């Protein structure tokens, strides 16, 4: 079946640095991609999404990049803060079906 995976299971960055979390997907039919943030003991929270007709989308301190040629998705967090420490999941899908990756744990150190 199709799969979504992450290159790095854990990422440690210093406060103030930029973070980049990567995700590979294999379903070329996917047309919708989302990043979620999950803090300990909580449900996933939406961060940003992107449709397949775009290759970049920016939010507040976050940017999502989509490279359909190599089926790669990345989340960039600018000026990472301690509150950004969490597990980040990418998800890809088409229609209502969303397939989630295993997540990357981001640890922000002072």
């Amino acid at each position: 079946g199709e799969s979504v995976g992450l290159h790095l299971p854990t990422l440690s960055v210093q406060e103030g640095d930029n973070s980049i979390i990567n995700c590979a997907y294999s379903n070329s039919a996917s047309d919708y991609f989302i990043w979620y943030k999950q803090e300990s003991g909580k449900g996933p929270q939406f961060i940003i999404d992107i449709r397949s007709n775009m290759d970049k989308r920016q939010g507040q301190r976050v940017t999502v990049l989509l490279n359909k040629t190599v089926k790669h998705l990345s989340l960039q967090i600018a000026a990472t803060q301690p509150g950004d420490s969490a597990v980040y999941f990418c998800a890809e899908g088409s229609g209502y079906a969303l397939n989630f990756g295993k997540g990357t744990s981001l640890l922000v150190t002072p």
Partner: protein
Amino acid sequence: GAGVSQSPSNKVTEKGKDVELRCDPISGHTALYWYRQSLGQGLEFLIYFQGNSAPDKSGLPSDRFSAERTGGSVSTLTIQRTQQEDSAVYLCASSLGGELFFGEGSRLTVL
């Protein structure tokens, strides 16, 4: 309510017992999902409801798992004859299309 509400937040049960997990979606959201998250793992799709359409049950791991959605709103996930491998966080999400809004989850521990 303002968000997706799930209950109970924690459930400890003995192997072989049945459990029911409840989800109150955001009012007006037509789509409702159940996912399972095992420790340190990603989200495993279980079931999807959309309006009055037949649900997509393709993710249910066995016939011990079932779910209902009454009146297009509240949903109940039932696990019969629980096994230790059923221990996980069960997440419910609702949507109007696109972004999914998740609840805090129900943590199930089967002893």
